[in-house]
């Protein structure tokens, strides 16, 4: 028995805007304290509008835990940003000192996020250990730098493997079947396009600047290059590069990760097209700038609607037979960890 189920996203831009603007107002009024509650409220709205079959997802995080996590991060990040103001040497020293914390934050953030996501009464879970995370975060960064980026696709694949196989739906672990080739293909394509973009962009910019300075006429003295053109041009090249990385590389990696994830015999498929993502990101960025940020909630819904609707599950069995994990059973008996830190961070 095999059957395809598409994920559906039923959130509405205006509805989310109303939740968002109330969240913003209360966050500003409470000097940021409400932000943890705001986060949970917005997340619950989004999760509650993601459907698989006849069931929506659910987000159950405790805002107090998130607030605690944010205060902790603030405690760490404020000295770092102060160091940055004083000198770059202090700043990099501070970043280096923080490195041992990175794997801890990654593991805590992911397990907090997964444990508080629920589908059909079963919570997800993440069991990754500090030392595994240490290998796939700070150490693999170092490896990428030493090999001039050549090891990067490999370490990203291994990191995906780690993130997926340590995740569980209830007591059932996910598995990962991704191969290494697509990762190298995605990174090599990105490198080639960025190279062409920079070389072509800088060449075009110089040509344009030469043309405008010649246009000033022979009696204008020594050619004065238009600095403004140079700055605007460099910014445009950087923006185009960022857009390409977002719309192509990140999108590709996300698709691979999902499409190579298995839960028992069930397969997932995420099929995102580069032109669509490029259009979504470009138009969102333009509209966010033009509306002084008021478009942010609509932008989020637009991207999520496309991504969620492009995701489907090839089911080999009914959704009935999954069992809850131990953590959920412990949490349910009231022994909820009181000192839990809700860290959310995207690396």
């Amino acid at each position, binding site marked *: 028995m095999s059957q395809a189920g598409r994920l559906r996203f039923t959130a509405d831009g205006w509805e989310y805007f*109303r939740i968002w603007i*109330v969240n913003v107002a209360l*966050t*500003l*009024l409470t000097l940021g304290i409400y932000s943890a509650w705001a986060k949970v409220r917005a997340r*619950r709205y989004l999760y509650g509008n993601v459907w698989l079959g006849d069931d929506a997802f659910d987000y159950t995080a405790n805002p107090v835990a998130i607030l605690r996590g944010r205060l902790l991060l603030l405690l760490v990040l404020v000295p770092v940003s102060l160091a940055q*103001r004083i000198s770059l040497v202090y700043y990099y020293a501070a970043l280096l000192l923080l490195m041992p914390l990175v794997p801890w934050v990654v593991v805590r953030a992911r397990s907090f996020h997964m444990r508080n996501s629920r589908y059909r009464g079963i919570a997800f879970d993440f069991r990754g250990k500090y030392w595994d995370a240490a290998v796939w975060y700070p150490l693999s960064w170092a490896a990428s730098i030493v090999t001039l980026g050549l090891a990067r696709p490999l370490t990203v694949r291994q990191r995906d493997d780690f993130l997926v196989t340590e995740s569980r739906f209830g007591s059932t672990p996910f598995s990962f079947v991704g191969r290494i080739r697509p990762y190298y293909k995605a990174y090599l394509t990105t490198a080639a396009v960025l190279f062409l973009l920079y070389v072509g962009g800088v060449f075009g910019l110089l040509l344009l600047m030469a043309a405008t300075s010649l246009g000033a006429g022979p009696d204008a003295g020594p050619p004065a290059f238009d600095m403004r053109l140079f700055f605007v041009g460099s910014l445009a090249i950087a923006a185009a590069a960022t857009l390409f990385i977002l719309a192509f590389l990140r999108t590709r990696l996300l698709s691979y990760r999902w499409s190579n994830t298995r839960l028992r015999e069930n397969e997932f498929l995420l099929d995102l097209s580069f032109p669509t993502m490029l259009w979504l990101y470009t138009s969102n960025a333009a509209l966010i700038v033009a509306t002084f*940020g008021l478009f942010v909630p609509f932008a989020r819904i637009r991207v999520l609607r496309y991504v969620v609707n492009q995701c489907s599950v090839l089911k080999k069995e009914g959704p009935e037979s999954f069992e809850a994990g131990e953590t959920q059973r412990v949490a349910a008996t009231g022994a909820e960890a009181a000192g839990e830190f809700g860290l959310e961070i995207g690396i």
Partner: protein
Amino acid sequence: MTSVPCHYYDGRTSARREAGLTITPDGILIVAIAGIESRLLYPMTEVRIPNRIANTPRHLLLPEGALCEVRDNDGLDAMRERAEGQPPSHARRFERLLHRLDSTWRGSAAALAVTAAILYSFTEWGAPAVATGVVAITPPEAEAVIGDNLLAMLPLFGVLDSSELQSSRQDELRAVAEAMGREAGIEDLDLQFFSAPGLGPNAFALPGNTVVLTDELVALAEHDEEIVAVLAHEVGHVAGRHVMRGLAQTSSMLIIWTAFTGDASVAALSILGPDQLLAQRYSRTFERQADQFAIEYLLRNDIPPTRLGDILQRLEEAHADSGVPNWLASHPGTEGRRREAQDAAESVRDGSEALE
């Protein structure tokens, strides 16, 4: 009593059961699972009902980890209200207020108005106040480090070259600037000369009591008093610690805007528009203060304040010719500022005439 339909999950497996949910007036929640004769009973005090958000399904958490997923939000709320009676508790009132706020247009309009008012007052009064505080606690050494970093960077980008001005001429102007600094209580004013063909005639102040003057500006001046006027303007920036204030104001704006959009990278995007307006607004204030400082200095030293207007006028013409924006100086509205200097000069003349 009618019941609200729900899905029952026992919290151990993902199996779903159709069920009906009732809350009795004495605060007992009854779950009737289809196909099972016996009912599950729970005191309401042990059931956790999450806040309602738009019309998303709500998952009621039952004591031993079981869940009831309810989609009929209105039905559930009506039933709970009947069971809880009047008056509602504070928590319930706040919950209802939140739902009213984000499900009605009046609520959104109120939230938008509050947000706009807070953001406006922060830019108008908050950020400058924060900047004053930050500048007050920034040690001069730290400021000097920032200035030195900037000064070391500019030649790297090919903006500044070493000056070709005679050293005697440099010393002469440096002596004027240092005296000017001492008059304003700045003991270690540092005047630096650079040649800047790409930038053209320009002058700017850096953190750490440093003023930069380009050879091109010295060449552009038709009278030494014009250079003195420009120096006085820049020393005005140094005395007001405007660069540091500007940095502090911009970064405090970015922080509040991050709270607004909830995301630092999105904040950077959404602040692009307002930031341009604000930067101009803030810098205009700074320029006016620096002009004021310069005019007062010139008057004290019997130099006609029109010198400032004259050099500003010529600066603007020079930049209009070359097409190079004077982006580092960011001096908007030359015409208005020229008139101010003119007015100052006239009022002095009127004053002296009246004395005679």
